[in-house]
C-alpha cells in the first residue's frame, strides 16, 4: 500500500470523550457532551444527550428526540445515507450499518485517505433497517461485541421458529421475550410477522414509543398492543415483549405462568442464559458474529484496523495474524447490552 500523505493517526484519535477527528473538529459517539458530535446510531451508549451540535441520519435524530426530548442536542443536522457534507477539511458520508433503524457507518475522507468508523453493525438481513454497505477504507474502525470464535449466530428465522414451537407446546402460558427496547424489539416483531404469526403482540410500556416511531418510518409491524391494563387470562398463549430488566419488576408477576425467553446474541452461551433465568434462549443478534467480523475486514479493510468495544484482544490478534495492522482502541463507556 502506498504511504498516504496524511496517515489516519495524524488526524483521528481516541480521547477521553471519544474518537476525535481533528480537521473536522468533531467527536464520533462522544461519551460526554461536546460542541460537535457525529452519531452512528441511537443506542444510549453511543448517542448521549446534551451535545451542542449533532449530525446523524434523520432516523437517528428522530429516535434521539423521542428519547431525550429537548435534550437531544442544541442543533440537530440530518444527513441521509449517501449524502456528502464537508466539515472543515473532511468530507463526511453516512453509509448504512444494518444494526438498527438509522444506524450508520461514518465515512471520512481527508486528502485522499479514507477512514470508516463502523459503529455497531450486522451483516444479516433485517426487515427493519437498511442493509450494511461495505465501504473500502484505509483505516477501518470496527466494533467487536461478539469478537470470539464461539459466537456463530444461527439464522434468526430458526430462532423465531423455536419461539413459535414453544407457543404451540404451551398454549396456556404467556411467552415473555426479553428484548432491547430499540432495534431488537422491532426486529423480533418483524421476524414474527415474516414467519406468518399474525396475532396481536403485547408490549411492555417502555417499548411502545420507539415501536410507534418505527411504524411512522413506514415499517409495518402488525397489531401491537400495550401489555398493561390487559387481564391475566387474555395473555395466555400470547407473546409479550419486555426489556430484560422488566423480568425483575413486580409487573411480571401478573403474567400467566410465563415462559421466559430472551432474544440476544449472548444467549448462545447456555450458562449465561441459565444465569439470567432464561428458559428459552433465542440467539438473535444485531451485531456481526465472529465470521462476519473477519469477513467484513476482508471486504473493506485495506490494511489498518482499529478495534473498539467488545472482545478486542481476540479480533486484534487474529487480524494481525491474517496480515492486517490491527490495534485495540480503549474507548470507555460502551455497554454490552443488546
Amino acid at each position: 500500500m502506498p504511504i498516504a500523505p496524511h496517515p489516519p493517526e495524524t488526524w483521528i484519535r481516541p480521547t477521553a470523550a471519544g474518537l476525535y477527528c481533528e480537521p473536522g473538529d468533531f467527536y464520533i459517539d462522544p461519551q460526554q457532551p461536546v460542541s460537535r458530535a457525529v452519531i452512528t446510531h441511537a443506542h444510549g451508549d453511543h448517542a448521549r444527550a446534551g451535545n451542542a451540535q449533532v449530525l446523524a441520519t434523520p432516523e437517528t435524530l428522530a429516535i434521539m428526540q423521542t428519547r431525550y426530548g429537548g435534550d437531544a442536542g442544541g442543533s440537530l443536522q440530518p444527513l441521509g445515507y449517501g449524502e456528502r457534507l464537508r466539515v472543515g477539511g473532511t468530507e463526511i458520508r453516512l453509509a448504512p450499518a444494518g444494526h438498527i433503524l438509522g444506524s450508520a457507518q461514518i465515512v471520512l475522507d481527508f486528502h485522499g485517505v479514507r477512514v470508516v468508523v463502523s459503529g455497531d453493525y450486522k451483516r444479516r438481513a433485517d426487515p427493519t433497517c437498511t442493509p450494511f454497505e461495505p465501504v473500502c477504507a484505509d483505516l477501518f474502525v470496527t466494533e467487536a461485541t461478539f469478537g470470539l470464535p464461539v459466537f456463530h449466530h444461527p439464522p434468526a428465522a430458526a430462532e423465531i421458529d423455536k419461539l413459535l414451537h414453544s407457543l404451540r407446546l404451551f398454549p396456556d402460558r404467556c411467552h415473555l421475550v426479553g428484548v432491547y427496547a430499540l432495534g431488537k424489539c422491532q426486529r423480533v416483531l418483524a421476524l414474527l410477522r415474516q414467519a406468518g404469526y399474525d396475532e396481536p403482540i403485547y408490549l411492555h410500556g417502555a417499548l411502545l414509543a420507539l415501536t410507534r416511531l418505527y411504524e411512522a418510518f413506514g415499517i409495518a409491524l402488525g397489531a401491537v398492543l400495550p401489555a398493561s391494563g390487559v387481564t391475566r387470562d387474555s395473555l395466555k398463549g400470547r407473546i409479550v415483549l419486555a426489556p430484560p430488566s422488566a423480568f425483575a419488576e413486580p409487573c411480571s408477576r401478573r403474567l400467566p405462568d410465563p415462559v421466559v425467553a430472551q432474544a440476544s446474541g449472548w444467549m448462545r452461551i447456555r450458562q449465561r442464559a441459565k444465569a439470567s433465568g432464561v428458559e428459552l434462549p433465542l440467539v438473535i443478534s444485531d451485531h456481526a458474529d465472529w465470521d462476519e467480523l473477519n469477513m467484513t475486514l476482508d471486504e473493506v479493510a485495506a490494511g489498518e484496523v482499529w478495534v473498539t468495544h467488545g472482545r478486542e484482544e481476540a479480533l486484534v490478534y487474529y487480524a494481525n495474524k491474517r496480515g492486517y495492522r490491527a490495534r485495540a482502541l480503549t474507548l470507555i463507556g460502551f455497554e454490552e447490552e443488546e
Partner: protein
Amino acid sequence: MNRFAALLEALLLTPSRTGKLRLMGEYFATEPDPDRGWALAALTGELSFAEAKPNQVRALAAARVDPELLGWSYDFVGDLAETVSLIWPVAPLTASGASPPVPGLAEIVGNLRRAGRAEVAPLLAPWLDALDPTGRWALIKLVTGSLRIGVSARLAKTALAEWSGVAVDRIEEVWHGLEPPYQRLFDWLEGRRPPPEIGDLPTFSPLMLAQPLEDDDLARLDPVDYLAEWKWDGIRVQLVARAGNKRLYSRSGDDIGAAFPEILAAMPDEVTLDGELLVIRNGEVASFNDLQQRLNRKVPSEKMLRDYPAAIRLYDILRAAGEDLRPLPFAERRRRLEAWHDASGPHAVLDLSPLIPFSTWDELRALRDRARDHGIEGLMLKRADAPYLAGRPKGPWFKWKRGALTIDTVLMYAQRGHGKRSSFYSDFTFGAWDGDALVPVGKAYSGYTDEELRRLDRWVRNNTVRRYGPVREVAPGIVLEIAFDSVHRSTRHRSGVAMRFPRIHRIRWDKPCREADTLEALERLLN
C-alpha cells in the same frame, strides 16, 4: 444423541422441579431402548468413562482451532464443554456431499466403554464433527462425567416413577441390583415382565422418615407408646452387607462407601442396619463441620482418616441372617439390634444409639432443653409397636428438635430467587455488628410469609445502595431475627463462623438496626 442432547439442554434451562420431571417422563415414554437406559444411567450418575479426560477434549479442540483464540474463548465462557461445543469448526461434507452421520447414544457409550486411553480422542473427533453445538455440548458433558444440570439421581428415579406409575421406593429397592442400560427395569415398568429379583445383591431399602413434632402433638400422644433416642447431628446412612458384598448408602440411596473405607472394612456380613454417620473422637461426637470434611472427599487420605475418624451410631436393624425384620414392631427390632450387636462384637466403629428412659413428656422436654452437646440436634420419638415403613408415615416417628438459637441481625444484601420467586428479592444475606461495621454472618431463604416477602421485596427495591448483577446491597435498616440450630467456626466465611439451618424467625420492622447483635454475641454461642 440429538434427543438426549435436547433433553440435557432443556433440563439445564428449566428451573422448576415439575418441569424437569415432565421433560424426563416424556423422554422415557418416547425414546426407544437402549438409548433411554443409557440416558438414565447418565442422569443418575452411574455412567463414567475412566479413560476419557477433559484434557483430551481440550487437546482435540486446540488441534482444530487457534490455541490463543481457544484460550480467550475459554476464559470468557468459563466452561470447557460449552466452549468447545461452540468453537468447534463446521465439518466438511463427506465425499458424497452428505453431512457425517450423527452417532446414537448407545453407539457412543458402547465405543467409549471399550476404548483405551489412546482410542478416546480418535473416537470423539468424528462425533464432534457430526453433531450440532448442542450435541457436542452434551457429548462432552457425558464423557467428562459432570452433567451439572440440576438433576439428582433421586429426581431421575422420581421421573421414572411418575411416568410408569410404580412407586419410587419400589424402584429404589431394586435399583442397586440393576445395570445400565436397564432393559430389565424398563421391561418391568412397562408391564412386560415381573419385578426384578434382588437375590443376594446388597441393595438399598428405602428409609423410614420422621415427621417434625408440632406443638399440639404431644397432648394427643401417650408416652407409654413411645421410645426415645437422641437425634444425632450427622447424616443418615444405611449399611448393607449380603454374601460378602458391602455397601454404605446415603439417605437418598447414593453409594458413599468409597469415602468411608474404615466403615466398610469393619462391617459384619449378612445384615442391613440403619444409623447415623458421625465423626467420633475418643467417644465424643465432633461437630457436623468435621463430618463435612469427610463428606467432601471421594477418597480420604491417611491423614483424613486419622484426623476425622468416622463411626456409625446404630438405631435400627432391617435385615439379619436372611430374615426381613421390617414387619416387626420397633421394640422387637431394637431387641434384635442389641442382640446382634452383642453377638457380632466387639465393634470398633459401630455403636448403639442409647434409648432414653422417661415417663412423662415434661421430663423428656427438660432433657431436650438441657442437651447442648455437640452432635445432638434434639430427640427422636418412635412408636414401640410400629413396623419399619418406607417413606414418611404420619404418627410412628417424630423428630423433636431442640429449641433453636436466635440472634438479631441486619439485612445487608438481597438476591432474586428462582422459579416462582424469580421476580422477588427472596435470598437474604444478613450481618452482625463488629464495632461500627457489619460483617455478613449468614444467608436465609425461608421463614417468611408471602405477604412478608412482598414487603421485604419492596423495601429492598427502595433501599438499594449498590448493585452487583443480581445482588443488591441495601442500606442498614431492617433487623432480621434469625433462628438457627447451631453455630460453628469456619475458615470459609469472612466472619469466621457458620450457622446451621439459618432461617428468618421474625422481621423486626420495629427494631433500630444499631440494636442488632454483635459478632461477639454470636461467637458466645459457639459450641
